[in-house]
């Protein structure tokens, strides 16, 4: 286990090791839902929520089920199953008992099951040998980082709605170029901390 403060990991996950901008994970919902600030903020919150809990669950399953049984190599499939089941369950619960929350987050939950950032965080947690606290900080931080990236993107996309974009670049094309530019800016932070 490496000795890095969870607080450092938390901030690193937001700025220097941003899931979207330095790992390019979770791109499809990032491109598809980033046309409006309000909805992208809701999606970001849902991602943060799911990331926090699935990282925690996957940590527990990995360290207390898979390692004792010597089945570490099953983590890919087990993580995916746990994420999918968790999202399903949470959607049902929110839909039934928290109508207001369902209104804000619930409808985005099915989109997140297939978000590769969620699986990515769980796998990084294993590869980088994080402790429970470190994993939790990494999960929450990655969620907030993902939210930051998508909300920023939505803000930029709202601004460029009226800009004269070459026809061939409209929509996903210009979004990917902007993502690249944003990634360059974020890479500038990357020397500040090392978390792996």
């Amino acid at each position, binding site marked *: 286990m490496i000795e890095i403060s969870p607080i450092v990991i938390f901030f690193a996950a937001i700025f220097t090791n941003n899931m979207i901008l330095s790992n390019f994970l979770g791109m499809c919902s990032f491109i598809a839902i980033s046309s409006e600030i309000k909805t992208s903020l*809701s999606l970001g919150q849902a991602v943060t929520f799911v990331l926090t809990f699935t990282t925690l669950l996957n940590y527990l399953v990995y360290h207390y089920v898979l390692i004792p049984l010597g*089945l570490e190599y*099953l983590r890919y499939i087990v993580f995916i*199953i*746990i994420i999918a*089941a968790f999202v*399903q369950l949470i959607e*049902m619960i929110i839909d039934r008992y928290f*109508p207001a929350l369902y209104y804000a987050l619930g*409808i985005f939950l099915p989109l997140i099951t297939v978000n590769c950032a969620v699986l990515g965080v769980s796998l990084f947690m294993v590869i980088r040998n994080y402790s429970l606290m470190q994993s939790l900080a990494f999960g929450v931080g990655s969620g907030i980082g993902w939210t930051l990236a998508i909300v920023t993107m939505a803000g930029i996309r709202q601004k460029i709605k009226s800009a004269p974009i070459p026809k061939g670049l409209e929509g996903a094309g210009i979004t990917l170029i902007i993502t690249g530019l944003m990634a360059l800016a974020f890479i500038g932070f990357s020397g500040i901390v090392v978390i792996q």
Partner: protein
Amino acid sequence: MNTIIMTVAAISAITGFLALLLSVANRTIANYGEKKILINNEKEYIVDGGDSLLSALIENEIFIPSACGGKGSCGYCKVKVTEGGGTILPTELGYVTTEEQKEGIRLSCQCKVKEDLKIEIPEELFNVKQYDYIVEKIEQVTDKIKHLRLKLPKDNEIDFKPGQYIQILSPVYKESDEEVYRAYSIASSATDKNYIELLIGYVPGGKCTTYIHNYLKENDKLTIVGPFGDFFYHNSDREMILVGIGTGMAPILAILRYMRDNNIQRKGTFYFGARTKEDLFLTEEIDEIAKTLKDIEIVYTLSRPTPECNWTGPVGRVNDLLDKKLDDCSNLEAYLCGSPLMIDAVLDVFKKKNFEEQYIFYDKF
């Protein structure tokens, strides 16, 4: 060997546990019990809660128009929910205007039945039914358009107004892994209640049109839901402007056939637009109808005639033609069917000429 057994056991245990958890949750948390839906304050239905309003209604054979099949991407399945249903969801906002929201309009495919509901739907939707037609004839009328004649088996009848449309249920087949509903205008006369005729243009990659054009054969069964639509013939003495572009000619043909069958003599002009001469179709029948309906003038117009067409008639888009021809719009009534682009262009011309809006009927597709 040990590893294999361990792997299988671990995966089975984990998935089994999660599956159990989910099915328990499905039975308890997602089980809303039986709920009542009261429609138009008269008809009451008992449904299993938890489903979308659209599928709950379809289960009770009430067919709300829906082109996307409940994915929340077409915006057709609007109903007025007066009681229950919760607040409008972000997925609906793009399709329901602010005024409609105040009235309680919802997309029935997104609104879930979690409590007793009171809803209002147009009375005519009770008339909408699902029919299994037999394909009697398929004919290629241009290189991209097929003419279908469908027969209702036994003594079944369909009641529709000339100009309305139906939806074809395109089944799962080799090139499509899902069932889709797609809307097509009825081209046959409303007096002919055992048959319908459709004119279907080929759309590259289109799930339903590919099925119709490449897979459907004569004597096959075809499932149809309908009739729908508020675009239909109105009785009046006003002079008619009929515009049909490409397959948009279908509902206009239905109106003309209906007028012929009921011997309705009104003054009017039918503009049938197409790209080239080869894209005009069923012109013989149209000319035949024009002989009976003496006061209807037929104008064929081509937007891009080739030298091979030997075309002497009017050239250009219908909106330009109307712009030149129309003068006094005070006693006119218009029926337009075609692409949104063409209809918007024609509406602009009408607006410029102070055409009264209440007498303009159109169907964009």
